[in-house]
């Protein structure tokens, strides 16, 4: 099939253009901040200047007197605690008595314009009693007597997970080669181009609507109703077009509660748009982790044991932290077979902006540590880095050491592609001084069997309705956060119903109108929402075919607006009319994704247990300036097994975006804090994310393993392809100049220090 005809058809596998692409490019797309209503107020949040303090008193009277101020809000007006995970409700929209990081929300002002609201903030008087602040996971561990967050049962531990699979110590004792090192991952954040924004409005009947730049409208719906004490049926959450999220918009946030409460208080629409600085305080980015990793290989180069002790710096609130503590250990057990495995991961509360899920939630850090450690161990045995990964391949239709079921697995193919494309055999270890190649592999989930709150209802739902005109309307709860699910829904409708994908309306992420989907996280959307959509469309296709067969005969084919049978063809619209007549009622159908029972039979065994796993391999090429430590990643070949590319253009986009983000974390991204716990430079000038000029050439290579359970064989592509970037770069720098980087980011000064500490003869890694 040629590229252009695929493009026109827009069914599964086509390079169909993103349905919201044009609006994003030409400015006509409507983001949350583009919404405006008559009499709308603008609100601003007052934030704590202390990393840790008791609030003794809040006085808003002077702010209220400022002309143009319409209302103020303090925590006591909605003190209920919330959080995305029901077991760790530990946040308040506005702190009532305890602030836990610099930037924690304390009060809110609604005014006629933003500037007046900002001026009013300076008139609010808050009396604080400062408390000692705990600014690292180590400090939080050392000082259980200082409580960052009362939710912690023991000291400052959000969650500790200890699991052991097989006799790890025995395997280590008999290993042929061992790496035992400490790896450190700096925290990083998502930096989506669109800052968080929310708008609330209350109608004449007392129904509340909140538009929010969220990737979890359903959880926002639940938490809003709970915290505001409203019946959920009176609350509607709508997610407009979104300008990037990457996990940074998958918690309920203070601004959503504040606009809602202020709209209820004033009877006027209210908007809050975060400044860029506030986006940094909202954070929920990648956790800093310190990982003491042991990797043991037997004489044949097989991984006989992996042991990982992980200390996680969580920040002031739990967010998804309970899951983070699990993912950090549970998601490492592929694409290689581990003989034995043990991890002990501890997430600590600290007095910093809360960490959460960032693309590749929980598993990017341990993956970096492990893939570098594996390289180090293989080198001791003189095994080529690609060979050691091939030799340890876990296979298809197998169970991992921690009881996860792997179905399709295209990892070997991924390795083969990057090996060939990079010219590995001819070039690895032979590029001359200061240049090198490195490899790494990884595995990631396509959703998880663990619903965030326990329930028996489907995790994702879709309703499809057919109109007499031939227009198809898909009502889907799923959040398109740029990954392109709305486009895929059009393609699935085209594939199943034979309609023109351009004649599909997608109504998405509106809790009044669309069935529930849990949200855009854990790479679950295409898999789960895709299956739900296919189920709904299949039901309708059966009705269409039955009705059309009267006219065109049996053995019907549905394709791009035409219904063809042995006795002729009719248009898609005609088929809809026949089917509606036959039904005697409007045509619609629903589909759902029902959670499967998966995972190991132990506490936490379902967390990280996925209906299908994606696999990735990268080879990175670097150049290191040995006099200055300045290095550059020039090219990354990334092969990703996404099961089936429902839309190759979207898959390539996800691979490229992931590689970019991973390479960024290796190069320069870090949330740096001063002694007081103040985030250093919360702006896109001081917090460095690479520009296009700092980005390597990316070769996005698609591998299709056709998963038996995914929609049309598809798995995920949004997060997995990030993982190998960082270790592949670290391993490439080793190939280039013989140093081992174990701490992120790989700042030039760190590189230079290691270069200077080299012993003679260590300048280059010896080619295997």
């Amino acid at each position, binding site marked *: 099939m040629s590229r252009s005809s695929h493009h026109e058809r827009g069914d599964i596998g086509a390079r169909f253009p993103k349905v919201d692409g044009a609006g994003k490019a030409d400015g006509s797309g409507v983001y949350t901040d583009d919404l405006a209503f008559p009499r709308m107020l603008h609100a601003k949040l007052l934030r704590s200047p202390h990393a840790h303090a008791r609030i003794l008193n809040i006085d808003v009277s002077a702010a209220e007197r400022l002309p143009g101020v319409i209302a103020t809000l303090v925590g006591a007006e909605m003190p209920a605690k919330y959080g995305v995970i029901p077991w760790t409700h530990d946040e308040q929209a506005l702190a009532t008595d305890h602030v836990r990081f610099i930037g924690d929300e304390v009060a809110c002002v609604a005014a006629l314009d933003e500037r007046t609201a900002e001026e009013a903030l300076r008139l609010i008087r808050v009396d604080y009693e400062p408390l000692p602040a705990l600014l690292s996971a180590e400090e939080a561990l050392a000082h259980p007597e200082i409580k960052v967050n009362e939710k912690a049962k023991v000291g400052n531990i959000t969650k500790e997970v200890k699991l052991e699979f097989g006799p790890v110590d025995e395997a280590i004792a008999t290993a042929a080669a061992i790496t035992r090192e400490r790896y450190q991952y700096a925290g990083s954040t998502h930096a989506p181009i669109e800052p968080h924004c929310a708008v609330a409005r209350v109608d004449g009947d007392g129904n509340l609507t909140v538009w929010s730049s969220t990737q979890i409208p359903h959880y926002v719906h639940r938490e809003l109703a709970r915290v505001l004490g409203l019946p959920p049926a009176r609350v509607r959450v709508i997610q407009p077009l979104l300008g990037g999220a990457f996990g940074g918009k998958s918690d309920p946030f203070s601004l959503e509660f504040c606009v809602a409460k202020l709209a209820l208080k004033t009877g006027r629409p209210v908007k809050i748009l975060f400044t860029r*600085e506030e986006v940094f305080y909202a954070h929920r980015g990648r956790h800093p982790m310190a990982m003491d990793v042991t990797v043991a290989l037997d004489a044949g180069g097989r991984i006989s044991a992996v042991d990982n002790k992980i200390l996680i710096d969580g920040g002031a609130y739990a967010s998804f932290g309970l899951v983070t503590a699990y993912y950090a250990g549970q998601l490492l057990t592929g694409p290689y077979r581990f003989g034995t495995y043990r991890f002990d991961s501890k997430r600590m509360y600290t007095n910093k902006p809360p960490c959460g899920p960032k693309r590749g939630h929980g598993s990017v850090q341990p993956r970096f540590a492990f893939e570098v450690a594996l390289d180090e161990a293989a080198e001791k045995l003189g095994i080529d880095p690609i060979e050691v990964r091939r030799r340890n391949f876990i296979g298809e239709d197998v169970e991992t050491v921690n009881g996860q079921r792997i179905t399709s697995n295209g990892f070997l193919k991924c390795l083969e592609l990057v090996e060939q494309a990079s010219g590995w055999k001819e070039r690895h270890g032979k590029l001359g001084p200061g240049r090198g190649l490195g490899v790494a592999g990884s595995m990631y989930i396509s959703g998880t069997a663990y619903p965030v709150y326990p329930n028996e209802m489907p995790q994702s739902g879709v309703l499809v309705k057919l109109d007499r005109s031939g227009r198809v309307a898909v009502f889907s709860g799923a959040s398109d956060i740029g990954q392109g699910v709305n486009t895929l829904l059009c393609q699935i409708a085209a594939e199943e119903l034979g309609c023109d994908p351009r004649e599909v309306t997608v109504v998405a992420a509106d809790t009044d109108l669309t069935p529930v989907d849990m949200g855009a996280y854990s790479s679950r959307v295409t898999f789960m929402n895709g299956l739900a959509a296919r189920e709904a469309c299949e039901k309708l296709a059966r009705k269409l075919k039955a009705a059309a067969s009267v006219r065109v005969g049996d053995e019907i084919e549905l394709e791009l607006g035409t219904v063809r049978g042995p006795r002729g063809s009719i248009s898609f619209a005609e088929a809809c009319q026949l089917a509606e007549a036959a039904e005697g009622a409007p045509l619609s159908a629903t589909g759902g994704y029902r959670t499967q029972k998966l995972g190991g039979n132990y506490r936490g065994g379902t967390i990280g247990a996925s209906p299908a796993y994606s696999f990735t391999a990268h080879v990175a090429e670097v150049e290191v300036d040995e006099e200055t430590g300045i290095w550059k990643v020039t090219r990354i070949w990334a092969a990703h097994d996404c099961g089936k590319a429902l839309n190759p253009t979207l898959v390539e986009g996800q691979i490229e975006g992931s590689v970019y983000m991973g390479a960024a974390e290796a190069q320069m991204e870090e949330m740096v804090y001063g002694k007081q716990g103040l985030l*250093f430079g919360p702006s896109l000038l001081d917090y460095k994310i690479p*520009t*296009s000029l700092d980005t390597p050439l990316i070769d996005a290579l698609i591998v299709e393993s056709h998963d038996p359970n995914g929609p049309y064989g598809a798995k995920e592509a949004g997060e997995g392809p990030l993982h190998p970037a960082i270790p592949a770069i670290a391993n490439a720098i080793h190939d280039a100049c013989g140093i081992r980087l174990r701490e992120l980011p790989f700042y030039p000064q760190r590189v230079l220090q290691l270069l200077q500490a080299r012993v003679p003869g260590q300048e280059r890694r010896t080619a295997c």
Partner: protein
Amino acid sequence: MLTLPRLQLHRPGSVREAVELLASKPNARVLAGGTDIVPNLKHGIYETEHLIALRGLSSELRYVRRDGGRDGDSIRLGALCTIDQLSKDPDVLQSLPALADACRQIAGPQLRKMGTLGGNLCLDTRCVYINQSYFWRSALGFCLKKDGTACHVVAQGLRCVAAASNDTAPVLLALGASVRIVGPRGERVVPLADFYLHDGIHNTVLEPDELLVEAAVPLPAARLKQAFFKLRTRAAIDYSAINLAVALAVSPAGLVTALRLCVSALAARPALINRLQDLVGQPADLHLAEELGRRAQKQCKPLTNIGVDPAYRREILPVLVRRTVLRAIAS
């Protein structure tokens, strides 16, 4: 979004009108391209109610001109030339290639189209502790430069050492440029080497009611071997973590006859490296380049005012100088 303070915008149509406005409006400030002053206003760094926008002076102050003056030929650059324009101007490319190179590396494409030469030369000094929001600065504790009494860079420091961060300054200093200034008391020409002061709060000799209207480079510059280098984390957008410019004249025998080296993004005053006279007469070679690296390192003390490790910046400075000097020699 961060909001601007309440301001009145004035739009003079001539240099004379602009200077009158500056003199009559209390605490008035000049707005050229606005790429520096607007973020600073949003951060609450200035107490001002009046902005004097220079756009209406474009026909007067946007030019690249060669002419013969008292001291021989020179190239004159109007203060409202945009950075983008200077990076592409044929005369600049030919006679002042290091300046074009510096301009190409300033900020990003959009900012270069807005930003002006005058704004760059008068760019406010920068410090990681001052170029932040009011909230952030309040949480840290305000500093000498605005609202506070202490310095976070130099403990017990009595003078602000925020860093000169403009990339055209070191090149124009190395090329021996001067600037023309117009004020209510008339006009004056100041060598760029005397234009900057050691004070991060106000690092130029400009009076509040004066306008910088032109930079002039004596044209022997066109015959100088020159090069610019900028160290930064990212290949675009970022301000310099160190910038340096070198200009040298070399005799047909390959001996240095004149030499200037400027290293900036250190503290408030972009300054030439001192005491290089003894190198005149030496061969322009690797040895010279290394010697310049050593001297620069001795005279330069990077500080924590910039978010790139000062010890590292100091450590690699000799390498950067050596390479830049060699590039100039080879040019």
